[in-house]
């Protein structure tokens, strides 16, 4: 099996999701995973990072048309590498961009694309994808019936592993299709970020309606600050104007996959669940013992956030000696 990974990067950093997929690709391919890095220029440092996280070979595609985050030039680039490098399996970590690239590439290669996967494995010589469906009540085994097999994973499906070394690097030139250059970015306003973004944060402290008031988000901020994390919010809390929309986690917000997720006064409606259930460890505090969030938490605490959280902040601070 020859496995190729589409690497997404934001500025100077490879996305955590693509690094997780890269670790999986390295394991699947016996340490021979390929990775594609695209952008305007100066990708060498990122290529070296990709090697450290499991890419044996990195294909660099540098072109002005790859500067804006548009999918179609990336489909051209991926097709070129897949065909020239003879790859049969192509893995993506889901994002707005990666999903559009994967679907375009599937059409281009006339290949099967399975999405929303949480795992992939080989069974009796056959590749099997694991997909959570019907609001995560069912785990579906899916397969491919094409020479090229494309898979799109939920972010956080795999742990990042710094197991590699210096990668072999190949610069690739791509002949872009005309339609791929027919869309251009007119303006772009990047999200402001202080501290880690919620997509990449290792720790997220999130608040819901149970926090009771906008000012109580200061507890979440303080705890997140101590743990080196970011603050998230439910749709309901954002709707009430307690916290900005950029922090919204769930179906109509961001999907996150931190190492630790602390849910303060969050009931755990399915719309929220789909955005955070891939967290490695979930701690929930809620005064309603019947709150759905307790069904998928590692530590469920039935109690009042207003008394527990200030005390917890104090204990964590003591522990950290600050």
């Amino acid at each position, binding site marked *: 099996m020859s496995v190729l990974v589409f690497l997404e990067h934001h500025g100077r950093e490879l996305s955590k999701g693509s690094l997780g997929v890269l670790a999986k690709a390295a394991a699947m391919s016996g340490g021979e995973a390929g990775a594609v890095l695209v952008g305007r220029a100066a990708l060498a440092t990122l290529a070296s990072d990709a090697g450290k996280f499991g890419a044996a070979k990195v294909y660099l595609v540098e072109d002005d048309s790859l500067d804006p985050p548009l999918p179609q030039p990336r489909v051209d680039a991926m097709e070129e590498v897949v065909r020239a490098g003879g790859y049969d399996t192509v893995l993506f970590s889901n994002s*707005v961009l990666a999903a559009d690239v994967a679907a375009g590439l599937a059409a281009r290669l006339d290949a099967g694309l399975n999405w929303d996967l949480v795992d992939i494995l080989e069974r009796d010589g056959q590749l099997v994808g694991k997909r959570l469906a019907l609001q995560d009540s069912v785990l579906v085994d899916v397969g491919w019936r094409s020479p090229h097999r494309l898979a799109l994973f939920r972010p956080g499906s795999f742990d990042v592993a710094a197991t590699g070394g210096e990668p072999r690097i190949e610069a690739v030139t791509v002949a872009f299709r005309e339609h791929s250059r027919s*869309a251009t970015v007119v303006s772009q306003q990047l999200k402001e970020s202080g501290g880690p973004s919620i997509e990449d944060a290792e720790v997220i402290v999130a608040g819901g309606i149970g926090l009771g008031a906008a000012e109580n988000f200061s507890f979440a901020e303080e705890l997140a600050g101590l743990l080196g994390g970011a603050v998230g919010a439910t749709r309901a809390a954002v709707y009430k104007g307690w916290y900005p929309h950029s922090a919204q986690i769930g179906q109509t917000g961001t999907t996150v996959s931190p190492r630790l997720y602390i849910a303060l006064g969050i009931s755990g409606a399915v719309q929220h669940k789909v955005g955070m259930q891939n967290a490695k460890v979930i701690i929930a505090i809620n005064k309603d013992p019947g709150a759905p969030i307790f069904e998928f938490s590692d530590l469920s605490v039935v109690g009042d956030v207003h008394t527990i959280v200030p005390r917890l902040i104090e204990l964590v601070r003591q522990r950290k000696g600050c």
Partner: protein
Amino acid sequence: LDRSGPGELNAVDTNAIEEALRLQEADAGVEVVAVSVGPEEAVESLRTALALGADRAVIVSDPAAAGSDLVATGKLLAKILEREAADLVLFGQQTSDGGGALLWAAVADVLRLPCVSQATRLTLGEQTVQVARETELGDEVIEARLPAVVAVSDAINEPRYTSLKGRMGAKKKPLEVLSLPALGLDATEAGEQGSKTAVLGLGPPPARANSVTVEDDGNAAQVICEFLVEHQLV
């Protein structure tokens, strides 16, 4: 225009239709055509699109197309769209489309048209369409040359409801039901035969192992702190 559920329009598809109708209201020369691929029930959902204000509808409804995956459905839709030669193809899209339906990107690749997803605002120019969109990274405005494919998010507008007058009028509007041969396709190119993915089996979802519940007796903060230490999270 879109994909559909049984009898009713998919909620996000009503956003796509709404946007098309608004373009028509701004320019009477615009014709709105609702397009779908699906079983017989989907024909009814196209009636809803007509009742909302679409001028006519086209659907590929053929038993041989049942079970088509992304690429197979994309090819079918592309065939109809090729025939329609629309200036703008709109799809409906969940803001966070975990459910997939990444059809727009597949269709755009087959048709070799520019494609923009997650649209929250759409402005039609003479030769171009400007699309504002929200992604994980921030806000962007993208301009694409027409003809183009755009997937609109549910944040783009507030869809209207059908009126009695609209529902009555819909009965007289053209609704074309096509089979695969009518599009020059044979059965091996659609349905399960034409699909490149397959469902192999179903099972229960993984459960979280060793989950612990405590009731606060004044000690909960201590318990959480110890849990964090034990899991090396502080």
